[in-house]
C-alpha cells in the first residue's frame, strides 16, 4: 500500500496527486504558506530592516508571519538577515539543522546572498554554501518592500508546490532571484504568475 508508505515518510504533503487526495494537498500547502513563522536570524544591518518589516508600518503580520520565533523548533522560514562571518557559519548550519521540516530559507541582502561588498577572509561569500537558499532578496539593506516581495514570492511558490518540485529536482534550494523594489513605492507590485 504505497499510499500508507507515502504518508509514513512524507506526511499528507507527499501523497501523489490524485482525485481523492488533491484537495487535501492544496489544503496543506495553503495552510503552510499562509501561516509560516520566521526564525529570528538577525545578524547585521539587514536585521534592523527585518525588524522594521515586522513593525507596524510595514507589518508582515498581514502575510501570516505574525511573530518571529526565536527557537528553531517553532519556525518555518529562516531569514538570513546580514553578513555571515566564518565564525558564525557552523552556528547557522546548526540552527538550520534544528529547524523542523518543512523549512525554507530567504537570503536577505547582498551580504548574505553573495558576500556583498566584503569580499575578504572574514565573510562567507554567499550563504548558499552553508544552507540551501530558496529566495534571494537583493539590496543593502533591502527595503521592507523588497523583503515583503521576497516573502510573498516564497508564499506563492509554497502554495503552488513549485518549491518542493525545484528542491526535489536540484536537491538544493529553489534558487529564486527577485528584483529590488524601490522604497516608498505607491504602485502595487504585481507578482508575475508562473
Amino acid at each position, binding site marked *: 500500500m504505497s499510499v500508507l508508505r507515502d504518508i509514513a515518510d512524507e506526511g499528507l504533503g507527499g501523497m501523489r496527486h490524485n482525485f481523492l487526495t488533491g484537495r487535501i494537498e492544496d489544503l496543506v500547502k495553503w495552510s503552510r504558506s499562509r501561516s509560516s513563522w520566521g526564525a529570528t536570524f538577525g545578524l547585521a544591518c539587514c536585521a534592523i530592516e527585518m525588524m522594521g518589516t515586522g513593525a507596524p508600518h510595514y507589518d508582515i503580520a498581514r502575510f501570516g508571519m505574525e511573530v518571529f520565533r526565536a527557537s528553531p523548533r517553532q519556525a518555518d522560514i529562516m531569514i538570513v538577515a546580514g553578513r555571515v562571518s566564518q*565564525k558564525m557559519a557552523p552556528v547557522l548550519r546548526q540552527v538550520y539543522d534544528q529547524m523542523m521540516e518543512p523549512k525554507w530559507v530567504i537570503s536577505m541582502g547582498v551580504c548574505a546572498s553573495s558576500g556583498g561588498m566584503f569580499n575578504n*577572509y*572574514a565573510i562567507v561569500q554567499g550563504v548558499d554554501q552553508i544552507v540551501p537558499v530558496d529566495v534571494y532578496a537583493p539590496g543593502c539593506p533591502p527595503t521592507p518592500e523588497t523583503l515583503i516581495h521576497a516573502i510573498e514570492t516564497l508564499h506563492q511558490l509554497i502554495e503552488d508546490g513549485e518549491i518542493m518540485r525545484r528542491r526535489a529536482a536540484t536537491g538544493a534550494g529553489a534558487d529564486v532571484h527577485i528584483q529590488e523594489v524601490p522604497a516608498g513605492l505607491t504602485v502595487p507590485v504585481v507578482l508575475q504568475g508562473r
Partner: protein
Amino acid sequence: MSEDVTTQSNPVLVHGCPSETRFGQLVVHAARTNHLDVCRALYEDGYQMCVDLTAVDHLVHAQRSLPAGVTAERFEVVVNLLSLQHKRRVRVRTQVAEGETVASLFDFYPATEAMEREVYDMFGIRFDGHPDLTRILMPEDWEGHPLRKDYAQGRIPVQFKGAAS
C-alpha cells in the same frame, strides 16, 4: 590648523621619551622596554581612561616621520589615553619588532584586556602579564593574523574588475 610637528632634531622629552604634537594631541614615542612605565606615569598624571589600544603593521611603509632617537620597527602599538579633568588626549606609540612581547597594561587599565586580545588576534603581538590572552574576533582554530600586511585580503576573484583590485 596645520600639523604642528615640533622640530625633529631635539624633541621635547615626556617621561624620558621623545614626544611631538600632532593635530593638537600629544604623541609620546615610548620604547618597548619602558612602555609600561610611561603608561603608568601618564596614569598618575591624570590620564585615568585608556580609550583605545591598537597596532599598526609597518611592514610595507617602513619610512615614516619619527622624532630623532626612535628606531622604526615593524609593529607599532598605539595606546590612546584620555584625561577627564584636563580634557586632553595623549597617544603613546611603541615600536615593537616581530616576535617581541609588550607589557600588558591590564593592571591599571582593566579596559585594555579586550583591546590587547584583539591586537594579539589581529597582529600576533603577545602581551605578557595579560590574564587571558586568547583570540577574540577570529574562530579559535584560525591560522594567521589577518591584519598583518603580509596576510592576503582573502578576496575571491569576481567577474567585474573592481577599480582598486
